[in-house]
């Protein structure tokens, strides 16, 4: 019970820290759900950067250090950064009109959370590396790269992966004063809940009818929960990549604006801090947003590059330095590109699409259609790029290809299926009216043409 309270307390604290950046992150027209999702992701990115800083300074984590430094950051951000209320964006209220789809989705989320608390649907990877790393970092009170680099580990613990999830586990355990796996499963429930919130916001912003909005959120919840129960997904980091892509949809739907650029930047940083595949996703998200022309603004400016790229760079550069320093990179993908592997890859993939995903993963075949429509093209670029990246990994891997696809592709599809499903549901609708982008200093007089 105390461990669950510690996890919930840390979640709330990270949300409060992230919400101190609301002035930079909140665009006019952002709904309450989008704000909550983005603030939470921002809080987790700030938390990850803070732990990286503490490790660099040689300071061991403790509840006092974590609480004081997070509190200090929140105060500094509140004092020196513009707050949303001061800059104009209206206050947003949480949806009070829960429809049948919302209720079904919340019920499904509750079923998943309860099952996750029993550890029965915990991913084996929690045992092999996510949970083990979390407990080691909790015991050693820092990201223990020397332990990650032990020669006998090889790739069995994926020592080269970014460490946000184990850090969340370690910090939760520090606050609870013990490592309690059932309580840590609440993180997966949080990510799932945030995915549903982001999907509801995206469908609403795309102007979907109430029926499509309700049915869309319910279908997403049911499809993901069915897959997660069958494939044992609780406790892993794949939720975080799915969340990053879903949270990026609203800013990708509207014309580029500074707040949207930063929202994409935060989603990219969150993905990059979560898994090694997230570094690629971060790149595709940034590219998808950068490729769009901002009305009334220069296509590329230093400010835009910083908003889009700085959060992900702040996450990825220290990670890359440590991984190189301790020589943690794996050799799974060291072979040459071989078209001959297609004979194994595609049949193995088709089994997965129809098997653990109950056919819902077929939605990724709609990616080319999403690319045809202007509204969903940036999403198709990011999701399609990521899918091609996975294919490239399979075509160049020296590993047993059939086993590699069978053991990883179901989980990798979780990164893409939710966002593509939302994109497919919004595709036949006319684009939502765009909010007026907030002007930049000195840009108000420019002619958008």
């Amino acid at each position, binding site marked *: 019970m105390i461990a669950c309270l510690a996890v919930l307390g840390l979640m709330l604290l990270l949300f409060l820290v992230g919400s101190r950046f609301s002035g930079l992150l909140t665009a006019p027209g952002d709904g309450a759900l989008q704000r909550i999702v983005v603030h939470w992701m921002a809080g987790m990115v700030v938390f990850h950067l803070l732990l990286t800083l503490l490790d660099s300074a040689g300071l061991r984590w403790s509840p006092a250090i974590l609480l004081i430094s997070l509190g200090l950051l929140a105060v500094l951000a509140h004092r020196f950064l513009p707050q949303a209320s001061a800059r104009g964006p209206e206050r947003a209220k949480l949806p009070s009109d829960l429809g049948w789809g919302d209720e079904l989705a919340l019920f499904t989320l509750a079923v998943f959370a309860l099952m996750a608390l029993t550890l029965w649907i915990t991913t084996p990877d929690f045992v092999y590396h996510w949970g083990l790393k979390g407990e080691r970092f909790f015991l050693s009170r820092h990201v223990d790269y020397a332990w990650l680099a032990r020669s006998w580990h090889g790739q069995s613990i994926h020592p080269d992966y970014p460490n946000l999830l184990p850090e969340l586990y370690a910090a939760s355990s520090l606050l609870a004063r013990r490592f309690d796996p059932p309580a840590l499963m609440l993180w997966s429930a949080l990510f799932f809940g945030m995915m549903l919130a982001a999907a509801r916001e995206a469908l609403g912003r795309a102007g979907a009818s109430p029926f499509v909005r309700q049915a869309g959120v319910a279908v997403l919840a049911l499809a993901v*929960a069915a897959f997660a129960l069958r494939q044992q997904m609780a406790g892993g980091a794949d939720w975080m990549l799915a969340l990053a892509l879903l949270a990026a949809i609203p800013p990708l739907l509207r014309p580029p604006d500074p707040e949207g650029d930063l929202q994409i930047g935060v989603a990219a940083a969150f993905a990059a801090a979560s898994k090694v595949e997230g570094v690629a996703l971060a790149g595709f998200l940034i590219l998808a947003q950068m490729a769009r022309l901002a009305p009334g603004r220069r296509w590329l400016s230093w400010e835009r590059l910083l908003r889009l790229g700085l959060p992900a760079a702040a996450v990825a550069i220290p990670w890359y330095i440590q991984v190189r320093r301790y020589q943690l990179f794996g050799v799974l993908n060291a072979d040459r590109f071989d078209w001959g592997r297609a004979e194994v890859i595609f049949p193995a993939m088709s089994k997965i699409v129809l098997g653990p995903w109950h056919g819902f993963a077929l939605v990724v075949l709609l990616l080319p259609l999403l690319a045809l429509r202007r509204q969903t093209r940036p999403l198709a670029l990011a999701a399609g790029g990521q899918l091609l990246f996975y294919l490239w990994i399979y075509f160049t891997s020296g590993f047993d290809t059939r086993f590699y696809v069978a053991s990883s592709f179901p989980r990798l599809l979780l990164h893409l299926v939710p966002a593509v499903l939302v994109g497919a549901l919004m595709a036949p609708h006319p684009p939502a009216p765009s909010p007026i982008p907030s002007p930049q200093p000195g840009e108000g007089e420019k002619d958008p043409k």
Partner: protein
Amino acid sequence: MSLRKLILGFVLAWGLLAMLREMSFALAQYDSRASLSPREVSRWRHGTPPVERLDRCLAGVRERVPPGRVVVFVSPRGPHNAEFFRWRWAAYLLPEHEVAPLRGPDTGTLAEYLVAYQRDFHHPRLEPMAQLPGCRLYRVRKP
């Protein structure tokens, strides 16, 4: 009713069926977890007898071996990389120790203790320490 609503309604019903089926399957398995013994070690789950057997052995190791020591874990080879996955579970259940596999690159030089789980293991450098439930703990003499 439009065709679009009809299709979405069908997809929703399919999703509901899929979720109910998986929930029912997961609950049925969970209820019978005490009698489940997956043959493949990679399918072990928390709360199942094989994991609890291993934990009973490692509880004795936790009592006798100081934290931070290098413990080599050996177990029977088997199909589907059974020895490898048992070693990963042992590492998870002994997080305060450095749990190494038998065939690790530095195992021979760094090993301080050895746990032989459900198998016999003989080596001139091994000094028996304790017979534990399902396993035997040895101290490893330096070469």
